[in-house]
Structure formats: structure tokens, C-alpha cells
């Protein structure tokens, strides 16, 4: 495992009466690509701004490489930021924008020239030195913003929803580019997004946040396949979340029926949230599966169909590569290993945010 570079210790922050971050403990490793994922207002941007030095936490500490940097201003941190709207200096050309940091740091003009070349090559914009930044496309401005940041050889690069202003194709492209730059430079990337697809496809680790609290930290596979609570299950990907009761180890009761699963360690008769991914549900002929139901809605997405099935008064979401017709009688089948059992939230803060 890579060594720890940044540690947030019990960080909390409020704006006026609004608590935006609370009890944040997080360890960020050297060279990793870590994503802060959550709905708007979950505190992810504030967390990024605290790491960048643009906000000071009300309580807690920010440790960088073993040193407390909680009160260090942004210009004295070995951290650079790629802002959401790029924030390029419109009165300077591409070259002057990139040279801004090294010039302030008092580097020689030879060094700066080499660095500009290297940075532009890194972002695939060789030869753009003299271009006017206001005349570049959104994607190009984004690349310049990245070049302007990495040219300072920061230990950490903070990226605040940098892809949100780009169109879909460009966004996909930039995702690959960012991962490549991360691997090539070895700079730690802290990436903020509300887009779960972005988070899953780019990150080494994902930090899922909601209402100022960290909900789960893990690899993309980890947070997708083994969400720790209903919020994570609901926010990342599509989920059927059902109230259930644990009967004993490896047996859960849903809709009055005992059903085999693989989870253990819950007390007997303990209420739980049961998560089943729509792609894990197989549709079968009536009575062949565990639950009988009726198809209520079919939506074609290109790669697959979203099929709603009403069974036992619950609206199941099923994803299938074969279509069905509305009104058709079907039954649902789920393999025991695809049933994820989660503890019920203990406090209101962990409650599922249904509006996301």
C-alpha cells in the first residue's frame, strides 16, 4: 500500500447555521486517484476547499505529509487546483497562464519554457503557447487549466467537477486523459463529482458522501457491490431496496418469504435493508421464480431494457437485454450471492436522501 499523504482528522465546518461537514476522518494515499462522490450539498466541494486552503475548518486538523497545514494559506501549500469553470486568466495567453505559477516561484526562464512544453505535451495541446485562452473550446480550456496546475509539480491536484461543463463525448475522453495524467505524473488526484459513472470509472478509491458525512470509502467495485447502507446503494447505480428481517445467518425474510443469502453476523430478527441490483434479477415464467408479478412499464435504453414489475405491492426494477410487454405475467429470480444485506440507518443523518 502507498504511504499516507493527507489526513483529515475530525474535520467539521458550518456556514452560519448550516452544518456542511461533520466528523470527517479520511486518509489519502500518495499517488492515488480518489474521488469525493455525492449529491450537491453533500459537502464534497467544501472538503476539497479545506484541503486546498480556501476554507478553514471549524474543528479538526488537516495533516499533510505529517505536518499540520490546517491554517496554511493556499499559496503556501504544495497543492494545486483545477477549478470547475477553469478560471483561466483571460488577459494572458496559454503560455503566460501556464507560466504564472513557476514565475511566481522564481524559476528560470529556460526551466519555465521546458516546463510549458512538457505540460502542453501532457495535455495534448502542443504548439498552443501563443493562443488566446478565451478563444479555446471548453475542452481545450480544461486542458490548459490542468497544464497550469501540474506545471508546478504539486504533490496533490484538486479537481472540482472539472468535466461538468463538457459534452458527453469530450467528457469520456477527458476521463481517460485524467487517469493517464495521474499515472504518468504520480500526482495524487482528489476529484470531486456528483456523477457516479465518473467516480466508478476513474478512481482507485471512492469516498461516498451525503449531508456532510462520509457514508463509505472503498474501491469502485467495493462501493458498488457491497454498499454499506441504503444511501450508497441508492446513489451508486440503480437498486431495489427492500425492508427485510434477518431470520438467521444466510436467511433473510422479504415479503413474508424466507430467502437464502450469503450474509451473516446479524442478530436474529434484526430489521435490515435488502439491496438487489436490477441487473441481477432474472425474469422467468410465472411461478418458476421466487416472486410472481406483472410487468407495468418497459423502457428501452439501447443496451438494455428497464422493466418495472409489480409483485407483492412492491415495484421492482429489472434490467434485461430482452424486452417484455406491459401486462405480461412473470416471476423474479435472484441468486443468493446477489442479495446484499445492509444495516438500517441508526440516525437521521444516515437516512437515505430520496430526492437525489
Amino acid at each position: 500500500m502507498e504511504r499516507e499523504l493527507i489526513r483529515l482528522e475530525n474535520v467539521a465546518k458550518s456556514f452560519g447555521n448550516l452544518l456542511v461537514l461533520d466528523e470527517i476522518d479520511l486518509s489519502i494515499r500518495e499517488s492515488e486517484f480518489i474521488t469525493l462522490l455525492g449529491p450537491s450539498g453533500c459537502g464534497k466541494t467544501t472538503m476539497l476547499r479545506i484541503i486546498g486552503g480556501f476554507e478553514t475548518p471549524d474543528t479538526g486538523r488537516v495533516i499533510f505529509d505529517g505536518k499540520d497545514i490546517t491554517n496554511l494559506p493556499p499559496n503556501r501549500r504544495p497543492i494545486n487546483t483545477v477549478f470547475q469553470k477553469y478560471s483561466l486568466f483571460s488577459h494572458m495567453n496559454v503560455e503566460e497562464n501556464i507560466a504564472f505559477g513557476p514565475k511566481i516561484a522564481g524559476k528560470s526562464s529556460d526551466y519555465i519554457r521546458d516546463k510549458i512544453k512538457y505540460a502542453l505535451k501532457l495535455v495534448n495541446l502542443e504548439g498552443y503557447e501563443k493562443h488566446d485562452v478565451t478563444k479555446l473550446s471548453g475542452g481545450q480550456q480544461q486542458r490548459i487549466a490542468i497544464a497550469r496546475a501540474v506545471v508546478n509539480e504539486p504533490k496533490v491536484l484538486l479537481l472540482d467537477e472539472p468535466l461538468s461543463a463538457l459534452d458527453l463525448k469530450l467528457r469520456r475522453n477527458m476521463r481517460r486523459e485524467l487517469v493517464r495524467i495521474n499515472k504518468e505524473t504520480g500526482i495524487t488526484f482528489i476529484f470531486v463529482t456528483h456523477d457516479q459513472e465518473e467516480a466508478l470509472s476513474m478512481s482507485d478509491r471512492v469516498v461516498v458522501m451525503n449531508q456532510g458525512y462520509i457514508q463509505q470509502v472503498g474501491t469502485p467495485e467495493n462501493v458498488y457491490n457491497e454498499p454499506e447502507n441504503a444511501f450508497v446503494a441508492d446513489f451508486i447505480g440503480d437498486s431495489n431496496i427492500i425492508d427485510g428481517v434477518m431470520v438467521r445467518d444466510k436467511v433473510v425474510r422479504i415479503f413474508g418469504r424466507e430467502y437464502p443469502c450469503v450474509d451473516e453476523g446479524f442478530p436474529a430478527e434484526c430489521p435490515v435493508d435488502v439491496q438487489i441490483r436490477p441487473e441481477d434479477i432474472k425474469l422467468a415464467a410465472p411461478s418458476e421464480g421466487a416472486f410472481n408479478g406483472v410487468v407495468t412499464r418497459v423502457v428501452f435504453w439501447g443496451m438494455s431494457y428497464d422493466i418495472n414489475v409489480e409483485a407483492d405491492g412492491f415495484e421492482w426494477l429489472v434490467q434485461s437485454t430482452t424486452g417484455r410487454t406491459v401486462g405480461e405475467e412473470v416471476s423474479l429470480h435472484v441468486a443468493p450471492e446477489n442479495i446484499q444485506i445492509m444495516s438500517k440507518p441508526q440516525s437521521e443523518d444516515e437516512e437515505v436522501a430520496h430526492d437525489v
Partner: protein
Amino acid sequence: MMFNLNTRNFLLTPFLIWAGLFIFIPLVFIVWYGVTDYDGNFSLTNVGLIFERGYLDALELSIALALISTVICLLLAYPLCLILTERRRDNSTIISLLFILPLWMNSLLSTMAWQTILEGNGIINQFMRLLSLPDLHMINTEGAIVLGMVYNYLPYMVLPLYISLTKIDKRILEAARDLGANSWQTFTKIILPLTIPGAISGITMVFIPALTTFVISALLGGGKLLLIGNIIEQEFTFQYDWHVGCALSVILMVFIVLNMLLTAAFDTSHEEEDF
């Protein structure tokens, strides 16, 4: 626009008539009087008067005082506007009102108020005597005139500068900080270049009235320090010599046009950043 060309031209007519009657024709008259002698023949003698001692001194003094006032306004306005933009969210309406307020007052009135504050038996000197300190000679000095100009024209510097400052995205300043710039470097490398258009209009709006004023210099200069505006006024009201008055006005106009051309040149070279 939604108007077609014909409608637009039609709507423009009242303004064109106005401009012709009250701007263009008077201008032609001024130039005409300026370059003719009393018999109506073409002559540059009156224009040439500017090179004579009294007139040249007044012009030089006018330019010098206008420049000094403009620079002082600029130096006062920048920190003020920076503070105003910083506090935009909370109580800035009151603060900005305080600086707009002098605009609502008759400038003659406020200049006369300065007269009573600065004069020999004025408020300041009465206070000095109360403290048994020697009197200060303030009225009828160049300093008093500059003070009057700065007091009257500062809002014209503050407004355009404030507007151009509020147009700067806060994230741009954060980006500069992020890239290692301290507050001073952020100011000189980012804020200053981005507010040049605002500063330029401020400079024009302060320099021109300061160059042409005769009220401020008459009241605070006590008729001893003559600016070019006072001389022109005297030519018209005491000497009844319209030819000399107009000739001097034309010369003053040349300086104003020069100033505007200079600032316009600056403005276009920075226009792109304003998009």
C-alpha cells in the same frame, strides 16, 4: 434589434436634430470664433495667444492639477473599491451610498463648504487656535484646489472601477492564490490588468472635468490661482472677447480629444479580455 433599418432611422431623427442644433452648430461657432479676428477674417492670432506667459501658465497649471487630482483619485479609489467588492454581500449599500452621496449635492455648495472649512478664519483654523497652534494657510493654494477636485470627482473614479472589479470572478483570484501568488502579486498580476478598462474610464471621467473646471479654482483658489477654465470664463464674462475665449476653448478641446484618443487606444488593446 427588433426594429428594421427604416424604423430605426426614423426613431433616431429627434436625436439627430437635437445633436445638430445643440451640439454640432455651437461647436462650429466656437471653432469659427476661435480662428477668426474681430473683422471676421481667418486668423490664428487668438489661438497663438496660448503661447503667451499668462495663458501658458494657466494651461500648464490646469494640466498639472488635473493630473495630480486624477492620480490621487485613482490611488484612493482602488483600495476603496477592493474593500467594497470584498464586502459586497453585507453592508456595502451603505458604504457605496456614502460615496455616491456627494454626487447628489450641488457641487457648488460642497465646494463652498470646503471654502468655509479651509479659509483663514475657517473651521480648521478656529480649531487650531483653540489648541493654541499656529494658523494654517490652506485656502487659495494649489493643494486646496486639488482637494476640491478630488472631493468632487472621486465618485466618477469609484463607480467604473467598482463595476469592473465586481466583474472579476472570485475563482480567478483563488486560482492566482492557488498558483502561489500572495495578495500583492494577485493584485498586480491579476486585478490590476483586469480592471484597466474601468480605471481608464475613471481617469477620463475625472481628468476632463478637472481640466476644465472654473468653479473649484474660483472658490478655493481665490482668484489668485488661475486655471485655463477661469481665464476662458473671464474672457467671456469680463472681457467680452469671444474670439479669445473660443480660441482657448478649442485648445482645451484638443487636449480633451487627445486624452480620449489615448485612453481609447489603451481600451481597445485590452478589449478582448472584456469579451
